[in-house]
């Protein structure tokens, strides 16, 4: 045992090591671009150096003269062969780079060069020249030419702005008020694995090897674009080198590469450079916030107004929309919210780890900290006063809410009582010490999912479900669920995932996977149990004959009822079978009748945390200590403590990993990450890991994760709340709170950099 494997508390599984740990530490885990493909041709993208205008002519003669060049595909070459991409569901954007000559954003794909080698394709791509009719682009917030529209109704995912009561009247009664603006920058996921697509056709069927968070969605999306039946498309993604949302929706490149392979009659692989990924993949939209919060002197909030503005592209209305969560966080009284989209000449943003919560909860929690200061209240006590078991928008109860338990456990572990209240009152030599805290929250979403489980007479179990191992440990927890339900050891389970030919699972996004996959695996296992139990009780002379199936259990390979036992293998022998296989379809409560059919068609029907008779959220509390140098203002996060409650914890080891990784994402969001833009040309400037700053090992010091015991039987059959996106939500505001405590500077615009503190 070590710190990586916390001892399970109540309602927690065993902290087993990852089922695929060995493959990952030996280099044997094969990511899509690792796969050897016979006779593969290599493709390199040519992208636009302007952000707005029209491609008038492409000069490819010099490129075609490079030895080894096989094909160049450009605007017009896909007409009739490839349908346009669509925005929404499994598609990242409607921008159709090789259908149109219009340039919507910097770095838009304008051509694809295919050659015998990667180097030849790179050389030729550099020789492609393009003529453009350039227009003045609008880069984003504050630029001339942007269009601002209401988010409500602009996207089916954001029907209306949540509100309750009469905000104006309540605001007028407040004794203390906060009225401030906040902002978060453009950020790019930068998973460590480069984006790549490898497409191979055989006898009319195409196999695409690409890291994906949604193989079933992509299969269907790709089939539509390639104009083939989905049965002829297979998307394979066994290991994913980090995703964080970047591999949720399919980007236009995938179909272009599949088309190139079809046109060339041989497999094509395209590994996108990190630089080009900044413009051909998705990103986190820049946001602005205006918060008004009114409270009484006793600390009760009586009025809360959250208005957000979010950047998106011209053609696609991607909505971040975090007010659904912030409006329900505390017992505010009256609530008013509004979200607007700011449309500029940019590529379409998309999901990035805790898409709505990261920016919106940052703004809210920063305002909460400001209000605590204005009230001269301890920030933890301020949250306690406004904690509620009933959300204020529709008055629905929380299915469970352990927020203050998280605060209390984290505060104690952190040593919050050692904090002295005065600004700059804590010092360590030349370092100003600041302590802060904030709430983490993430809705408990769940989605339809299927799984197939097979138990063989020798006790081995195989689980199949088209989910995705993106680093979360989903294979491991699915195996734990099967082992537990079938009374078998963990090591006897193998799990197949990441392939669209498996029973479909939902997108690995929205922190739904553990809840959805485990609920489906549970259902399949229970069907196997039912068959075994039936055989055991209906036997003429078995040790369990005549008992009620409900009285039976299963453990250590045996069917058990008190002191009476029968080996599973015996029961199967009596049944005359060598294996039992069950396929199960799990549709969450409140799903439509077509939920499973839609899952097969790649149409996602996620049940969101705020839906249903009770609202469902996971909560956490994060405490941060920063040290800021007195003279240079270098800022270090010296300690982080987070306590989180997320229903049943399938595996404390992988849960801790997810939460800890999330907290460090939060540090990056607070202090490092921002994609900078040249506002004149609307082009990104820091498109590599040298200039796009992410936390490195030397940036991190002491990090502690506390798993708080919680039981919630309302969320889903597995009792699981997702936590992959919980850990990073509270950190940025906690850092901002600590920076204020150390320096007296309230930084409302992320990231917090040295220049903000001088």
């Amino acid at each position, binding site marked *: 045992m070590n710190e*990586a494997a916390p001892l399970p508390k109540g309602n927690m599984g065993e902290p087993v090591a990852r089922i695929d740990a060995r493959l990952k*530490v030996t*280099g*044997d885990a094969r990511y899509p671009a690792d796969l050897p493909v016979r006779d593969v041709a290599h493709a390199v993208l040519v992208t636009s150096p302007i952000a707005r205008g029209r491609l008038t002519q492409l000069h490819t003669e010099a490129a075609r003269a490079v030895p080894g060049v096989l094909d160049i595909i450009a605007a017009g070459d896909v007409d009739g062969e490839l349908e346009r991409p669509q925005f929404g569901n499994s598609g990242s954007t409607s921008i159709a780079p090789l259908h149109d000559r219009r340039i919507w954003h910097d770095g838009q794909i304008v051509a694809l060069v295919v050659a015998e080698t990667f180097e030849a394709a790179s050389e030729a791509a550099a020789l492609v020249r393009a003529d453009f009719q350039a227009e003045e682009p609008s880069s984003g917030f504050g630029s001339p030419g942007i269009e601002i529209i209401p988010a409500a109704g602009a996207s089916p995912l954001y029907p209306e702005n949540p509100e309750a009561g009469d905000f104006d009247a309540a605001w007028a009664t407040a004794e203390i008020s906060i009225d401030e603006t906040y902002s978060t920058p453009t950020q790019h996921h930068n998973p460590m694995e480069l984006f790549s697509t490898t497409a191979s056709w055989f006898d009319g069927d195409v196999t695409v090897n690409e890291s994906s968070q949604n193989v079933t969605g992509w299969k269907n999306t790709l089939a539509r674009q390639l104009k083939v039946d989905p049965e002829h498309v297979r998307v394979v993604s066994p290991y994913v080198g980090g995703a964080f949302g970047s591999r949720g929706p399919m980007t236009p490149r995938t179909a272009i590469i599949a088309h190139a392979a079809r046109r060339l009659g041989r497999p094509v692989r395209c590994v996108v450079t*990190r630089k080009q990924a900044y413009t051909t993949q998705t990103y986190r939209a820049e946001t602005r916030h205006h918060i008004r919060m009114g409270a009484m002197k006793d600390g009760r909030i009586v009025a809360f107004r959250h208005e957000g503005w979010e950047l998106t592209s011209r053609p696609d209305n991607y909505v971040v929309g975090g007010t659904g969560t912030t409006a329900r966080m505390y017992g505010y009284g009256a609530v008013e919210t509004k979200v607007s989209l700011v449309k500029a000449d940019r590529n379409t943003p998309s999901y990035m780890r805790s898409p709505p919560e990261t920016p919106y909860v940052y703004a809210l929690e920063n305002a909460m900290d400001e209000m605590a200061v204005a009230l001269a209240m301890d920030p933890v006590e301020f949250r306690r006063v406004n904690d509620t078991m009933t959300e204020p928008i529709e008055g629905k109860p929380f299915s469970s809410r352990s927020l203050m338990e998280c605060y209390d456990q984290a505060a104690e572990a952190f040593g919050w009582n050692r904090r002295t209240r005065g600004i700059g009152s804590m010092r360590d030599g030349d370092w100003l010490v600041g302590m802060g805290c904030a709430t983490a929250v993430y809705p408990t979403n769940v989605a339809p999912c299927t799984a197939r489980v097979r138990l063989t007479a020798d006790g081995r179990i195989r689980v199949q479900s088209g989910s995705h191992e993106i680093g979360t440990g989903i294979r491991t927890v699915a195996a734990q669920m099967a082992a537990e339900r079938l009374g078998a050891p963990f090591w006897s389970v193998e799990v197949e995932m990441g392939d669209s030919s498996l029973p479909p699972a939902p997108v690995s996004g929205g922190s739904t996977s553990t809840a959805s996959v485990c609920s489906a695996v549970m259902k399949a296992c229970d069907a196997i149990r039912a068959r075994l139990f039936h055989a055991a009780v209906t036997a003429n002379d078995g040790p369990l004959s005549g008992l009620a199936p409900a009285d039976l259990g299963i453990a250590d390979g045996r069917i058990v009822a008190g002191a009476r036992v029968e080996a599973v293998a015996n029961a199967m022998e009596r049944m005359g079978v060598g294996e039992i296989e069950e396929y199960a379809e799990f549709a969450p409560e409140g799903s439509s009748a077509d939920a499973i059919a839609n899952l097969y068609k790649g149409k996602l029907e996620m049940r969101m945390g705020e839906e249903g008779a009770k609202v469902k959220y996971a909560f956490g509390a994060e405490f941060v200590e920063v040290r800021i140098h007195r003279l240079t203002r270098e800022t270090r996060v010296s300690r982080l403590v987070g306590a989180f409650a997320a229903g049943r914890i399938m595996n404390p080891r992988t849960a801790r990993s997810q939460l*800890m*990784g999330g907290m*460090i994402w939060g540090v990056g969001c607070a202090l490092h990450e921002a994609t900078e833009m040249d506002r004149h040309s609307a082009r990104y400037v820091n498109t590599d890991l040298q200039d796009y700053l992410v936390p490195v*090992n030397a940036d*991190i010091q002491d990090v502690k994760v506390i798993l708080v015991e919680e039981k919630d039987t309302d969320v889903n059959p597995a009792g699981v709340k997702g936590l992959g996106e919980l850990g990073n939500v509270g950190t940025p505001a906690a850092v901002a709170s600590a920076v204020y405590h150390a320096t007296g500077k309230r930084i409302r615009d992320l990231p917090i950099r040295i220049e903000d503190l001088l």
Partner: protein
Amino acid sequence: MKRLVSMTVNGEEIELAIPPYRTLLDVLRNEGRLTGTKKGCDVGDCGACTVIMDGSPVNSCLVLGIEAEGATIETIEGQHAGPDLPHLIQEKFMDHGGAQCGFCTPGIIMMTKALLKENPNPTESEVRFAIAGNICRCTGYAKIVDAVLAAAEDLRKGRTL
């Protein structure tokens, strides 16, 4: 025009015909069929392609294949404690949850090996700075540092790299 280059990879002397412009990373992954070494940026920013060349850790994306003429290269595929036994460092990474998505892991393990060869008794801070050039986006680093320190502790108990 390809050039014939010989090098010793994971203890085995090999001869490869490679284009002179191909990076060592691409040579290992393509001609060498050793895809455990990963490409995370191809410009020396991320450390995912770290291999040990003549005893020193290098970003193999910043070395040309032809520069490896006569060199001794160690990659993740060559790390074992015995037949079918993971290497000490790999074992500690498994125990401490040092791998999540796993993509940066081979590079970090090779960097760890180079560190521990040079400094078998590193402090936590020395570990953090030694592998600061290997970016990990999943773990939050603490588990990696724990794994490296645990490997160092076992070295002190007499185990070998």
